[in-house]
């Protein structure tokens, strides 16, 4: 059973945060609507797959990643790991889960303990999970991330490393436990361009050679394409489009994806880029209610957008949640069916 189930499966996953209430509000029993940071996200991450989630700040992508990592408890929906519902996990299951699901953080300057050498940074997870051959594993993993020769780096502190080297140590720390899944939170956004390319290549190479699946989140559409096979676009807590990388970059269907893709500057002064018509920034994900969440910024807004669009397969492997992209009459039946199923 486990060989066929996806590594991670999200079914309508939700993470809502309660808003802090003032003393007066508590006394008067006034409730505030929750912050709907992640609001019904469903997808699978299979073996040897790399998927990316892109979106503006505040779209919920970081919250989603932290929820997957178990740093937040989800407030709704279900999360399966290798076919098993994490809702029924006991402590030993979580420990196993955390050995297999590792994270690389955005900021290599703050995500390494400044008082620990590279050696002890890499040794700690091995101690926690009581793994053997520690010295060999540390040596191998440093070679894997191209910190050569490993002896040169073992006794250094993060302060003695450049940004790119630090991010390599972060990757090594994620790899040292031989995980199935890596969750990467914009791992190149803080690096210089010359280093960025090297780290992107390294990540791609790991996915191809080491049986690792990756979920990569970023706001930068242009770097994502080097790592991910499939890109999902997130807006205010929901996935609005999903397609293979090249399709999404060349033929995005959702007006928001179109805006995101066309807002990327092109390194060519002779190229005339068409600028997006979308203005402003997303709303706060509080008390959003019914309807398409992008409608207040959408250049194509119609009356029907006050109803929540269904997430449908518009073409093969290309899913989108937009009223422009499906025939409403033929879809009404299937919608009621899915509701019954849920």
């Amino acid at each position, binding site marked *: 059973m486990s060989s066929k189930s996806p590594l991670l499966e999200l079914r309508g996953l939700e993470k809502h945060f309660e808003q802090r209430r003032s003393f007066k509000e508590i006394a008067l029993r006034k409730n505030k609507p929750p912050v709907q940071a992640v609001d019904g996200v469903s997808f699978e991450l299979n073996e040897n797959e790399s998927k990316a989630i892109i979106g503006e700040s505040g779209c919920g992508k970081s919250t989603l990643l932290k929820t997957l990592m178990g740093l937040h408890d989800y407030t709704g929906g279900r999360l399966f790991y290798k076919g098993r519902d994490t809702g029924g996990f006991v402590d030993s299951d979580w420990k196993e889960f955390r050995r297999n699901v590792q994270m690389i953080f955005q900021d290599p300057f703050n995500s390494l303990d400044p008082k620990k050498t590279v050696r002890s940074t890499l040794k700690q997870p091995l101690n926690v999970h009581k793994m053997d051959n520690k010295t060999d594993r540390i040596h191998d993993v440093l070679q894997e991330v191209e910190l050569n020769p490993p002896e040169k780096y073992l006794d250094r502190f993060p302060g003695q490393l450049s940004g790119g080297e630090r991010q390599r140590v972060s990757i090594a720390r994620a790899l040292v436990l031989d995980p199935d899944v890596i969750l990467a939170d914009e791992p190149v956004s803080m690096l210089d361009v010359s280093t960025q390319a090297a780290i992107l290549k390294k990540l791609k190479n790991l996915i191809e050679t080491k049986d690792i699946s990756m979920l990569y989140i970023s706001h930068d559409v242009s770097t994502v394409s080097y790592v991910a096979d499939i890109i999902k676009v997130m807006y205010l807590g929901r996935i609005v489009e999903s397609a293979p990388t090249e399709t999404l970059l060349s033929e995005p269907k959702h007006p928001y994806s179109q805006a995101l893709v066309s807002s990327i*500057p092109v*390194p060519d002064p002779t190229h005339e880029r068409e600028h997006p018509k979308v203005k402003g920034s997303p709303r706060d994900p509080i008390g959003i209610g019914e309807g398409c969440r992008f409608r207040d910024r959408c250049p194509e807004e119609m009356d029907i957008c006050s109803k929540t669009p269904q997430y449908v397969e518009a073409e093969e492997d290309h899913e989108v949640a937009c009223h422009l992209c499906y025939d409403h009459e033929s879809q009404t039946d299937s919608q009621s069916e899915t509701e019954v199923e849920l």
Partner: protein
Amino acid sequence: MSESTTEPLLDVRDLTIEYETERGTITAVSDVSFTVDKAEYFGLAGESGSGKSTIIKSIMGGLDSNGQVASGEIYYKGQPIHEMSEKELNDKIRWNEISWIPQSSMNSLDPLKRVSKQATDIAARNSDYSEAEALEKFKEMFELVGIQESRIHDYPHQFSGGMQQRAIIALALFLEPELIIADEPTTALDVLMQDQIFQYLISLREESDTSAIVVTHDISIIFESCDSMALMHAGQMAEIGTVEEVHQNPRHPYALLFQNAFPDIRYPNQELEIIEGHPPEMLGDTNFCSFVDRCPWATEECRKEAPSKTTIKTDEQQSHEIHCFHGDTVYKEYQAEKQDTESVEIEDSPNI
């Protein structure tokens, strides 16, 4: 031709800036010259530590206390602003003539003053606007940067990081300065907002002949928004010219590799260049090419002396400048190498 077209708006000549540190003198900027004309947008590109922000600070008269202009001059409309006192700069130059959009918004707003108060204070000192007029102008700018105008009376802490950055952009632009200095103005912002702000900056050049210096590590932004540019590496100029020239005819090895390290969304499968190593710390004697340790084409000559300016004539009309001893050979070899790999790829592919 009138006089104003011959004299550049900003003229930076042979600028060298040094920082005194415990370990000795660090040369952050060596011998840098460039000019910005009226209605010209000039881009300064380079990695962190290239000296671009130091140049900007020296133009604004805001170098850190251990930094000083060791040699060279900076002229704005013919006046030597590197010699001006703090008071003169505040009275004559800052905000209404040259306005600065700094990189980090967190430290740039006064936390104890409402944003609207900061705007009216600046207007009172640097413009003839009445308070009401200034507020009106400021409200318009707020709208433009995508914040509700009702929020101009908020305190900085009531804004998110992105909104603070946009509030600063509004402050920097509402007095319609002649020269805008934008130091990584949009790195903290999302791509859609970045696009919107640059569209506005570009429109200022057309509408009111504004000039700008755009400092960024993102060469795509410079290619899209600027007329001319300079690429810097560890305090030294590498290549300087129009954006078209630097893009189409790069001769300095750093310029070649740097622009090919950038992902281009039109070609998601294109191989990215990697530049090995990192910029050196320019401690002590700096009379050598600062790119030498990272350069695949470096020779002994490059260690003995910093290369001076060479003019590259690419055709009858076009020319630009580089600081490299080997510009022409580098370009030819790089092109040949690229063609080789491309032809190999074609041979490898079974379908062709």
